[in-house]
């Protein structure tokens, strides 16, 4: 029997998160199960039910977990301005003329 993945939106405006899945012979039954499992305590504002075979996973370690590629140049952590900033501040303070 086909598997249907269930996504829930917990609060208004939030992203949908994967909640779990149900097994059902067709979409109508999947919706019925999802209603009962994921909707009955109002734990979700909205629910999406998606046939599992419609989900495509990108499984590419070279992209997602590159072992030896330094991509820090595209992150905030790749730049440490502390020392240069201190030197610049020091130079600015040193050059200030007393009144």
């Amino acid at each position, binding site marked *: 029997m086909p598997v249907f993945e269930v996504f829930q939106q917990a609060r*208004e*405006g*939030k*992203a949908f998160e994967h909640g779990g899945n149900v097994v059902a012979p067709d979409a109508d039954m999947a919706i019925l199960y999802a209603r009962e499992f994921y909707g009955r305590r109002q734990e979700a504002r*909205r629910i999406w039910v998606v046939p599992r075979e419609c989900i495509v996973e990108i499984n590419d370690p070279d992209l997602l977990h590159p072992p030896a590629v330094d991509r820090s*140049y*595209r*992150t*905030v952590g*790749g*730049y440490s*301005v502390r020392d*240069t*900033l201190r*030197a*610049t*501040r020091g*130079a*600015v303070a040193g*050059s200030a003329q007393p009144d």
Partner: protein
Amino acid sequence: MVATVDTIVEDPARVEEFVKHVQSGGKVESGDWMPEEYRKQVLRFVEMHANSELMGVLPEREWINKAPTLKRKLALTAKVQDEVGHAELLYRVAEDLGKTREAMLQDLLDGKTKFHNVFHYPTYSWADVAIIAWLVDAAAIQSQKALLDSSYAPYARTMQKICWEESFHIKHGYDMVVTMMNGTQQQKDMIQEALNRWWVPLVHFHGPPTLAEKDRDLYYRIKAKPNFVLRQEFFSKYIPKILELGLTIPDPELRFDTEANEWRYSDPDWNELKLVVTGHGPKTEDRLNLRRMAYADTQWVRDVVLGRAA
């Protein structure tokens, strides 16, 4: 006959309920019912944002081949890639509101829709790249952070990813500016000159001080803060950082009024802003021509992907 906005009859009670919902912090998803004016207003706002991301890379791409080091080149390339990616995310949000990507790109190329004022100006040196990455992106993130609370939820969620990526741009821009301000006198002068060029466009950036009650984007909470508040927030956060580097801000009127608890500054020429964003900026035509050329050059890709006969 094609239905136009004027012919769509909306139940006033339903519109009133919708307005109450968004004004009290409620969210709207793309499949929800919404008044036609709201849909058009969000579409116009997001489309302009998308156009700005797409046009914003043009002044920066000119500098990829002139970057001073390999690391700077990698970082600038990554930033350009990010910005084009933002355009893609935003055009998707806009498309869901009922205008096709082809129509949006065509309107941009025809000068029928706008993009942000700062992308209509020329760049003269690497210092412009540094000031753009630091201060233009900082001004932008001030607006974008306020959009995290937009009533249009798909836009707000997209903004989470965008703000996260923009924070790298700002950090890298700051790194470039601080490095040059710690360098030779010539480097310091270059940064000061770039700041002088960019200051007025930066003051213009958040838009004229439109009365909050006349601002439909605020009315529907498409954006959560008025223009003048965003500008004050930007000033409070960045003016001290600019000054501590030994830079001078080219506005003799600029000061913090401790009594009013706000920045005072020379009122910029708002007519210049209006002219620039309506297609009369110093680089408007060049940038649009470059975009037109790129669009024509890549026509074959769209034909192949969309399965059209070449």
